[in-house]
């Protein structure tokens, strides 16, 4: 009986550790992905903030599909002052 409980607990712990490691391993890729999506938005819709941009029609044709990218850019811009702290956290610099 005790062995069964121990086995179950051990399985849970291992699964949790596995998930944790998986989450940790993609943490950097998540940040990279978010930044790439942010760069994509800046390039496509940069004309709205005065950056050089593709011909207007390219921007307008992509605009309808970019809801999520715009949200990411907005959230990134609102946390710009805190980006250094976020990077420090990511690389475990204390």
């Amino acid at each position, binding site marked *: 009986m005790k062995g069964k409980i121990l086995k179950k607990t051990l399985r849970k712990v291992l699964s949790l550790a596995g998930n944790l490691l*998986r989450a940790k391993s993609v943490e950097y*890729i998540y940040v990279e*992905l978010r930044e*790439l999506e942010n760069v994509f938005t800046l390039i496509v819709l940069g004309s709205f903030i005065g950056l050089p941009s*593709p011909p207007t029609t*390219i921007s307008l044709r992509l605009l*309808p*599909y970019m*809801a999520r990218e715009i*949200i990411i850019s907005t959230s990134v811009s609102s946390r710009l002052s805190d980006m250094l702290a976020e990077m420090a956290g990511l690389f475990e610099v204390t």
Partner: protein
Amino acid sequence: MSRRSFKVVFFMGKGGVGKTTCAAAFALGMSIRKRTLVVSLDPAHNLGDVFGMRLSDEPKRITDNLYAIEVDFEKMISKHLKSLTDKVKDIYGYLRVLNLDRYIDVLRHSPGIEEYATLDKMMEILKSNTKSGKYDVIVFDTPPTGLTLRIMALPSISAIWVEKLMKLREAILDRRRIIEEVTGEKIKAVVKGKEFEMPSDKEEDPIYKELIRMKKEIDFINSIIKDPKVSTIVLVVNPEVLPIFEAKRALEFLSKLGMNVRYVIVNKVFAISETTSLPKELITKLSREREALQLINNYFKDQVVIKIPLLYEEPKGLDKLTTFSRYLSKLINDAVV
């Protein structure tokens, strides 16, 4: 019908040099042997005036084999913007994005819209003829040089942007796929309280698919305007220094884009040999004309130069245009082959 089985001829030049007259006379001359469509892309149309007929956005029959269009710019820009805003409405319907029509008027003033809408119209005509094979020759009477060059450059510039954006998008989709493979599930995003699965495949990503659609359109237009077997560019100048300088710059610009200018028409040449009895002003004018013609010989060595004399009457109406088209027989014969 393959797109190579019809020809496209562009008439370009500074405003007022006689592009429309040359384009109309050429189209009329061509129509004796080939089914021809002549399209005015100049916002300040006068193709209808030259033919002496009222033209519209739909092909109007001029002779048995000749049809003409004056592109309606207001309609063209509205149509171009409507297709964009309809798409926005379709996708953002759930977000209750209403009254988008209010913004159409603002968008029509966006820089570059006029050029892109003109290119769109050109593409529509060329695509439709690729499918139907209705015309053997399509003649474009273009706006003055500056705007035309921007229109002609647009496919090349767009190609660079689309290519870069596709690479960036591929990098994004790659990262999404890696995350999916590790976590075993799709990345989810919440937009206005609604959860979405983020696509990681090129086939599923609407942005990538739109970029592919744009690339196909750009490749199509480039394959026509850059193919010397399909497209011919004719520069029209007057024997005056400024239009010649402008034509030279246009020639250099078009060469950089990979487009060949094969003909230069020098329109309204005085061609008077006996000058002794002429007034002083006219003698000066003739001397300047000789200098201008010398410049043409120097600048356009690789092009066929066609000289058309200044006529006593304006070549308006079918009869006079038919007479005028005889000066363009070299161009017409080459295009027929």
